[in-house]
């Protein structure tokens, strides 16, 4: 028996195909369950009767496409999310990076930038920020604009402050932002070390010789095959002995490049590229 969900799967595949062929954004290898929920949400919020209606409109209307793109690629993030991860980064990874004259960090899928500033603050507190260049990239242009501005609603700062202290923060969190008009603007000295740019993990290539790659809770939106491809991209982009940080429920176990890494902190999903890995 043909059910609504069978028809909808076809509609969703056609919509993603249309997005790719018309605008070059490739969501065809995203994990189906969450992209389906995002498309449903977009349909409901914008009053489309069906998913085919979205396809019809976005093929002809770039503005409508940009609204869809926003809803498909927005990611939810916060500062010092999973404080134990930041404790581990400080304790187990930074001492290794301290030996380097210059440290290149790639924050892939930086969304609106909360995690980028968290990482910058960590390096500042360990006295390393002057030697750091952070490349923060995302597929979503409007998210990058917000990240570049580094202005966040003050009501969220309370929770970020709690996270910061749980993450072993050494100062008053207020030293890293200026409060005005109900918002917190991140300090300029943090931004000086961050380069924000557009990068599409699905279609774009290697990002250069990195010492540390942080990509947390981004790969969960990809299919297993696409995950594997991106993990190989990370492997290529890391120097020997470089570090890769994934989200706390993500794993290299199902990837073909798992042998090229050693588990550095298995609980926080921090991996180190083996020195003999290609």
């Amino acid at each position, binding site marked *: 028996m043909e059910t609504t969900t069978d028809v909808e799967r076809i509609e969703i595949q056609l919509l993603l195909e249309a997005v790719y062929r018309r605008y070059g954004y490739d969501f065809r290898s995203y994990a189906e369950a969450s992209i389906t929920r995002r498309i449903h949400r977009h349909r409901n919020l914008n009053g489309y009767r069906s998913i085919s209606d979205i396809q019809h409109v976005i093929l002809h209307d770039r503005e409508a496409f940009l609204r869809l793109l926003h809803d498909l690629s927005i990611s939810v*993030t916060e500062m010092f999310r999973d404080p134990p991860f930041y404790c581990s980064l400080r304790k187990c990874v930074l001492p290794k990076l301290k030996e380097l004259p210059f440290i290149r960090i790639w924050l892939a899928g930086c969304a609106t930038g909360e995690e980028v500033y968290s990482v910058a603050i960590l390096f500042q507190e360990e006295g390393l920020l002057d030697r750091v260049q952070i490349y923060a990239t995302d597929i979503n242009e409007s998210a990058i604009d917000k990240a570049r501005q580094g202005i966040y609603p003050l009501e969220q700062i309370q929770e970020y402050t709690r996270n910061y202290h749980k993450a072993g923060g050494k100062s008053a969190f207020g030293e890293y932002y200026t409060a005005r008009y109900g918002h917190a603007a991140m300090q300029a000295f943090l931004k000086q070390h961050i380069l924000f740019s557009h990068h599409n993990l699905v279609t774009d290539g290697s990002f250069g010789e990195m010492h540390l790659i942080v990509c947390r809770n981004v790969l969960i939106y990809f299919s297993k095959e696409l995950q594997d491809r991106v993990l190989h991209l990370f492997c290529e982009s890391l120097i020997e002995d470089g570090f890769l940080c994934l989200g706390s*429920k993500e794993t290299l176990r199902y990837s073909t490049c798992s042998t090229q890494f050693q588990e550095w902190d298995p609980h926080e999903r921090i991996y180190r590229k083996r020195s003999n890995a290609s």
Partner: protein
Amino acid sequence: MSESIENARTLHECIAIGVSAGGFRALSAILPKLPQRGRVAVLIVQHTRADAGDFLARHLDGICQAPVKHAEDKEPILPGTVYIAPPGYHMLVEQGKSLSLSVDEPEHFARPSIDALFESASDVYREKLIGIILTGAGTDGSLGLKRVKENGGLTIVQDPKTADMDFLPKSAILAVSVDYILPLDAIGGFLSKMGS
């Protein structure tokens, strides 16, 4: 009732359980009834704070015969195993019967969301899914249970009179014409039959 629950033994592949306030006690009561090498997989969303850690999963693993664990992204769903959505993540079922996680916005103020699990699981398992709503507050799960029913799955709700918090089961009963309303100990008995 017992006839179709008997049929459930051969037909169904997966049980999705949604629970909120009072879940620790309810899950501790029913999950130990699962056999050691059962043929159904069990997927659980329990509403908790994002920083709740893995205490619940470790506790249940300690008292259950079936292995209990937090779901990991892209993990294949194995029969006889209990997967709990990690705090702070939605847990979704993919075609091909694996799990994926998401940190998308909370739904009905909940992440993990019962609706997110039930709807995605129902789209994959269809009539081979059993959806169970236990004790709790809020309305998350009603839409998901409705989808389970529409796709031909079996729907069970804990009798609100036996729930620590009756709002969640009551909302589900209002929203869906459920197949069975069972007291907590009968749900445990049902799980014990879902074995070999």
